[in-house]
């Protein structure tokens, strides 16, 4: 290995510091609008922090080797007949296994957090049915139903029960980081707690978008999401039931 081993190692360190500072200062996730989104965005950031040194290490050794050990024109000699090294392989195996266990740990903890919310009893149950190509939203307690928008009160734990009338769709609200397939013959569910008011006009990620290919109109299977105060929500429900 020799002394030259330290150059790519230093390179990896430098790249890691650079990468981590970029990752610390720059969060690519779009604005979130639900409490649970924090778990998903947090997991994304954690995985990014862990990925950077791995990427930096491999890239640094790859680039260094390609430049440093390049065959000069006319050179005929072979490299040294090194067939491997048990300590190196065992160390590598140990490090990658440890990293993988950390990743599994991060994922399991995040998933447990998400499930925790899902298990709590909801303040409001909304039923959503996907169909080619739109969404029918029903508020069973108020007897209200609409296919124009999904209106939700802020600060309430909401469970959406999802099904489909025809083919498989997927109910996705990007701003909530919440997604669950709408499967015919099955009721699936997803839970979230919207934590700021707003609508599609201010934040285009406040939308119900179909995320599973469902045929010709798949791209257009979108309705806006509007998060309002508890009072506005009750008002809206009352208006809707009057119109029905």
């Amino acid at each position, binding site marked *: 290995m020799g002394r030259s081993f330290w150059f790519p190692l230093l390179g990896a360190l430098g790249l890691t510091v650079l990468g981590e500072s970029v990752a610390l200062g720059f969060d690519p*996730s779009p604005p979130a609008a639900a409490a649970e989104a924090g778990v998903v965005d947090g997991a994304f950031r954690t995985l990014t922090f862990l990925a950077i040194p791995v990427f930096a290490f491999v890239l640094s050794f*790859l680039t260094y080797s390609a430049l440093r*050990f*390049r065959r000069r024109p006319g050179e005929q000699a*072979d490299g040294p007949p090194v067939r491997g090294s048990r300590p190196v392989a065992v160390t590598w195996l140990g490090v990658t296994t440890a990293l993988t266990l950390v990743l599994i740990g991060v994922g399991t903890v995040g998933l447990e957090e998400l499930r925790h919310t899902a298990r709590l009893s909801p303040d409001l149950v909304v039923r959503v049915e996907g169909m080619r190509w739109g969404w029918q939203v029903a508020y069973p307690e108020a007897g209200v139903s609409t296919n124009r928008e999904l209106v939700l009160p802020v600060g309430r734990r909401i469970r959406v029960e999802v099904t489909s009338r025809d083919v498989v769709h997927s109910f996705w609200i990007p701003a909530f980081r919440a*997604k669950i397939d709408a499967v*015919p013959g099955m009721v699936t569910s997803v839970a979230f707690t919207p934590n700021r008011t707003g609508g599609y006009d201010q934040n285009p990620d406040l939308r119900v978008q179909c995320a599973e290919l469902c045929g010709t109109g798949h791209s*257009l299977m979108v309705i806006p999401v509007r998060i309002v105060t508890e009072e506005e929500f009750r008002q809206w429900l009352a208006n809707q039931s009057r119109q029905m």
Partner: protein
Amino acid sequence: MAGKPVPTDVGLRMLLPVGRGLLFGALGFLVGSGLAAVIRLLTGRTPWAPEVLLAAGYPSGLIGWLLGVGMWDYWVREWFGLPRRPEPADGPGRFFRFCTDHKVIGVQYLVTFTAMMLLGGLLAMLMRLELMAPGVGVLGLAGYNAVMSLHGIFMIAVAVAILLGGFANFLVPLMVGAEDVAFPRLNALSYWLIPPVALLLVGSLLLGGFETGWTAYPPLAVVNPRGESFFLLAFLTFGFSSILGGLNFLATIIGLRAPGLTWSRLPIFIWSVFAASLISLTATQFVAFALLSDILDRVAGTVFYNPVGGGKPLLYQHLFWFYSHPAVYIMIVPAFGIVLEIIAHLARKPLFAYRWVVGAFLTIVFLSFIVWAHHLFTSGMDERLHVPFMVTTELISIPTGMVFLAALGTLWEGRILLNTPMLFALGFLFNFLIGGITGIFLADVPTDIQFQDTYFVVAHFHYTIMGGEIFAFLAAAYYWFPKITGRMFSERLGKLHFWWAFLGFNLTFLPMFWAGVRGMTRRVADYQPVLADVNLFISLAAFFLAGSFVVFVVNMVYSWARGPVAAANPWGATTLEWQTSSPPPHGNFPHRPNVVDSPYTYGMPGAVHAVVGPAGGSDGANKTG
């Protein structure tokens, strides 16, 4: 091919076997569908039911095609005690007929699937044209779905078959020192199953295409237009070909190794083919059942996946991915093998941690069978499956990491020849590193909930398959070009191709991660206006990337026809395929080779991997530099 005596069957006569196949195929189709029509008539139904007639006519049509194109001559005549017709040993006619020479079949696969890859690339350009700006554009919604679906299945077929069908066919018998594969006729059969696949897929367009993507999830696949049946039958046929290929490679590697070629002396590419073949022999049946039951739901009104009759749409997804996830290792493990092989020979060092890599390949095969449900984290499947499948999926990064150790360890203190194949091999490592790392984000359930079915996934799998496998394919295409054609490619055009493709690839697919994070769903013709800029950029980069393939095709075609004649072993490599003339003669070696040492005897003066011929060498053999 220049410099060879011109054989008699040139010109249109070369196409006679194919013509006969088409004729027999049409007859077979008429018999099958006619029979179905008669049965329908006799049972009091209207005989005209296009899909039923298609599904009933197809199997007999396929058999007719295979009989016409060569099975008659090779099997049936033998069963009837007739002498087999001799096969031309030379000339371009071999490439257009049923031919049992593994090198001919390898070239048939390579040319066919390169053409399919270029066609699939053109379809991708159409997609990027539609996606250049938000709103519904040139293709329209239905048109986009049809083009996207066809692009998907074309590229999946290319990814499954181009390395195994192409390079493994050409190289496995050579590298194990055999005359041919274990079952040469079966090998030819597996190639001649491919033209019907291409015909059906292109034919589906005439019936309005299919719009389910290559995944064909029911109930969408059941309510979808008629083109869907063409697609399902094509996929089924392709799978059959893949099973036969896997069987053949396993039998060849197990049974036909040259004397002295023990398992611990197998070149790493052979190990990778062995591992991938285990998967294609044993996993493909599951997708065959999934597709067959999809077809039955369409044409026979069964309810495998129809909830109204008690069927379960999710069951299909499990069956489908039980094959289709292992299938990505059919694609990538041979790519690992190719890249490690090229790195060892062009860095002139023994492969680092050889045994660990073999262990890694076999671990990947095992794990590949128990990760499928990570495609279903948001499907509504039983939640108790989430953690186990997240765990198994993330465990795959351990053997994959071992492949990287082998690559980096071999490069270290090597004498690296930075030529075109080596550049593509290094490009593979860079691209696959990104593809692999971003895979973690999709194995992790919380992040997958957000990224599932977005452009993050599109970017991830293009990094693994296009930036990974296809870069390995290109590395292989240059590295073995002199062996296959007997001529040398243009190194200048090759380097231009590499840098153009490497830059174009990363400019196209890196921003797709961004688009995915910012909420762009995959398989859409239209998207949110806020995503306009990134999509315009991706489209322009994609058109730029497409240009690099023109350089590739020009280099390949021109060099094959006019390139300088290559030496038998231009890289001074140790493995057996280089110890015979380029291209190798019928039967591969003048004498059965004798393997005496590891495949990578670099830096060991006097040591050789194998001895060809009774005198211990022939036509420039055993040069270790």
